[in-house]
């Protein structure tokens, strides 16, 4: 069983995601070019961080219209796992696989720092290895991470357990401190923090290890 990482022009965390999946889920990982129209047979599709199309127009907007996205949508509809990290989260909202939108950080500046997170729902394929309502720390690195949705949507997300990660100290103005959400079915996750950068004590934090451990379990 294996995973695919989609590469858009301007993706720049694709290699990091491939390495983290390879090293911490023991699965084989395919890179898939955004112009392709078919996915290989995979359990998980990961949309990596970066600046697809330079984040021009809106972050993730142009990538969301890439040919491969139809296949990603079909994969999600079949119940396949989809993860969008940072720019990948932005792409998922632009594709409407996830509700809401990611707007410019409230402070208007790009922010790269470690952020403490609370696990709001450990009963998902992405978080099963974390302690429910426990805390971890994973770095963020984004300019447009300010999650917005209307109040009804936010209430629905809360009610249905779709809020998975919340910031302990909201760094970017996100509504209800949201750092990561799933779709209603629970098989599509978007998150702004970068778990793939938090898997090696040599490079700093290890708050992302449980994320990949959860994925490994879910793909088993």
């Amino acid at each position, binding site marked *: 069983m294996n995973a695919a990482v989609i590469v858009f022009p301007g993706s720049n965390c694709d290699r990091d995601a491939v390495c983290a999946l390879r090293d911490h889920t023991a699965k084989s990982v395919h890179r898939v070019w955004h112009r392709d129209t078919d996915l290989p047979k995979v359990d998980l599709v990961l949309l990596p961080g970066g600046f697809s199309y330079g984040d021009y127009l809106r972050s993730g*907007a142009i990538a969301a219209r890439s040919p491969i996205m139809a296949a990603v949508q079909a994969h999600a509809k079949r119940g396949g796992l989809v993860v969008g990290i940072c720019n990948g989260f932005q792409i998922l909202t632009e594709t409407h696989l996830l509700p809401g939108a990611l*707007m410019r950080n409230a402070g*208007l500046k790009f922010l790269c720092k470690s952020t403490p997170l609370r696990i709001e729902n450990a009963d998902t394929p992405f978080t099963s290895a974390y302690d429910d309502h426990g805390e971890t720390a994973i770095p963020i690195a984004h300019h447009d991470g300010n999650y917005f949705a209307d109040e009804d949507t936010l209430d629905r997300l809360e009610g249905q357990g779709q809020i998975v990660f919340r910031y302990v100290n909201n760094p970017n103005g996100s509504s209800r401190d949201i750092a990561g959400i799933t779709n209603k079915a629970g098989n599509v996750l978007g998150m702004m923090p970068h778990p793939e950068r938090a898997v090696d004590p040599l490079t700093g934090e290890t708050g992302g290890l449980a994320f990949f451990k959860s994925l490994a379990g879910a793909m088993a």
Partner: protein
Amino acid sequence: MKAIVHIRPRSGVLDPQGQAVAGALKHMGFDEVLSARQGKIIELELGDDDEQAVRQRVQKMCEHLLANTVIEDFSISIEP
């Protein structure tokens, strides 16, 4: 033919850029500024001459790409 698409944050949606602009202007002594909103303008050069058709096509471009209707409204004007 030229189409001008004006995209603005929907009312009720937070507009951090507009807020920052208003704050900075007030700080600079422009006390008459009550509020500011920041939007985008996209000017398209089109190789098509039928205004009716152009408007329809640009409407589609907005819906499919140029605007994110979760957070933005758009309006279109056509110039010959």
